[in-house]
């Protein structure tokens, strides 16, 4: 326990060490056990999407509809890939991210005016509208059967299924690493700290000459871009997009992972996704039928033991300086 306490004081180094360890573990797992590649990619995708949802949580806002942006990105990828089969996988990803960011820029104008339960429910409502449209417009979207995406080239190479998955895993790992670094930089920037200020005091922001709506709008676009990226990757790895990618259930899973991992550090979402996927895999294998129960109990334990998520346990608590209050 003493050892753990002293390690905890080195909190940020511990997060960095865990991050390196995690990336190396994913890398070796994927190479050693080919079957693990798809679940690893899925976990990383969940992690990146939840990182997006966690950004909004920094401002104290919980969106129950962010899977909408995964759906917009994935369907954009599908439409583009079906119209232009020669387009490269990277270009398709870029299209997906752009489409979700653009949609968020428009929808954001409206939803950043609301806070708390209204923000959450508005996002949910909008995502459900799109979800049902995707299921109904059969001619355009393939209805609930979804749309197939033929395997595109990657870095201008035509790849077999196995190599394609390995490349995607490497790409996901690289993207996740860059995003953890970039999003953490954002959290510590003036914009990111002002975003956290929305959670504690919007009135003061306004009286500092700052627009809380503008700050939240920027964050909203960033968060949607991350969810969009994960949706586009989902589409590529599965070779199929169905309306399920935009369902409220998915949005709920992202919220679940964000709470599990914690929003104190950008890496939290990836940790949450790792635990989420691991619990889901084990529970599904050994306790079929009650895996939701296991997930629920896990979340209750985390909320009771670590209200700031797993990453909150690892973070450095600064020793108080100066006189006692």
């Amino acid at each position, binding site marked *: 326990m003493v050892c753990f306490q002293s390690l905890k004081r080195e909190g940020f180094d511990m997060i960095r060490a865990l991050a390196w360890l995690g990336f190396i573990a994913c890398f070796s797992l994927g190479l050693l056990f080919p079957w693990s590649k798809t679940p690893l990619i899925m976990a990383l995708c969940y992690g990146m999407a939840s990182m997006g949802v966690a950004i909004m949580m920094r401002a104290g806002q919980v969106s129950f509809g962010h899977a909408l942006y995964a759906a917009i990105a994935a369907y954009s990828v599908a439409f583009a890939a079906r119209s232009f089969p020669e387009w490269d996988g990277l270009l398709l990803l870029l299209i997906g991210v752009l489409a979700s960011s653009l949609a968020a820029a428009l929808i954001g104008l409206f939803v950043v005016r609301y806070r708390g339960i209204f923000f959450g429910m508005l996002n949910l409502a909008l995502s459900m509208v799109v979800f049902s449209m995707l299921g109904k417009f059969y001619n355009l979207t393939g209805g609930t059967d979804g749309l197939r995406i033929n395997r595109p080239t990657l870095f201008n190479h035509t790849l077999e299924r196995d190599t394609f998955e390995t490349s995607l895993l490497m790409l996901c790992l690289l993207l996740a690493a860059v995003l953890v670094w970039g999003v953490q*930089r954002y959290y510590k920037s*003036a914009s*990111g*700290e002002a975003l*956290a200020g929305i959670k*504690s*005091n919007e009135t003061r922001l306004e009286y500092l000459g700052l627009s809380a709506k503008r700050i939240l709008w920027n964050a909203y676009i960033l968060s949607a871009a991350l969810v969009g990226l994960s949706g586009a990757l989902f589409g590529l790895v599965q070779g199929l997009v169905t309306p399920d990618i935009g369902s409220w259930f998915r949005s709920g899973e992202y919220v679940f992972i964000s709470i599990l991992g914690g929003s104190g550090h950008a890496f939290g979402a990836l940790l949450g996704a790792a635990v989420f996927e691991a619990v889901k895999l084990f529970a599904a294998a050994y306790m079929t039928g009650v895996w939701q129960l296991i997930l629920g109990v896990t979340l209750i334990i985390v909320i009771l033991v670590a209200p700031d998520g797993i990453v909150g346990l690892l973070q450095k608590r600064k020793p108080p*300086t100066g006189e006692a209050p």
Partner: protein
Amino acid sequence: MSALLETKGLQLSFGGVVAADHIDFVLQRGERLAVIGQNGAGKTTFINICTGFLKPASGQVFFNGVEVTHQLPRQIVRLGLGRSFQLPQLFLDHTVRQCLEIAAAGRSGKLSFFKSLSDSVDGREVDDTLALVGLQQRAHDPALALPEGQRKLLDIAMALMLRPQLLIMDEPTSGVASEDKMALMDTVMQALTERQVTSWFVEHDIDIVNRYATRVAAWIAGKVAADGPPADVLSNPQIQREVLGTH
């Protein structure tokens, strides 16, 4: 002296309660105005109208000769009108220093996305302001850990980071132990003098009004009932009866 803030015919009611009853008011540059009045007399409403938080039913507000009646608080703040609150409005999850850094970043209006907060503001200026209100020792403590008096000082310091020409303070000494009030006001007034900021504060303690104000305005039922040098206003029988309750 020149007029820094001017209102013409400000009028606002909440239901049947008249909170601002045709207020014509001029604040000169360099004044230290104390606003007194009982609870509900309309003191904070007047502040809220002048800072753009509430819109008047009729009338106009001018700051530095510019009409600001229909501007948003953040636009008026940018013109040089700072405000502190009866309940300090702080970023309680941030450290004292970070609170001031966010304020400094706010003044520039451009928030970086990538550069760290402390790198994007002038650290010396933050240090100066911390020293000005005597909070250097608490710089790295969370704002949440501060006692009420220091919270008030941090609230004022955040407003001062914007280099305002006028600072409006709503009850800067409320919630502070009576033996600490004078020390708090000494610190605040010294800071305001050093930064050459015109000030206006709402206050219930007559000793503080007497000691720090150059002008007193007494509010009764949404109106300025008396306005002038402290000695005149505080000896006015109507004010003694209806505001001070001494008679």
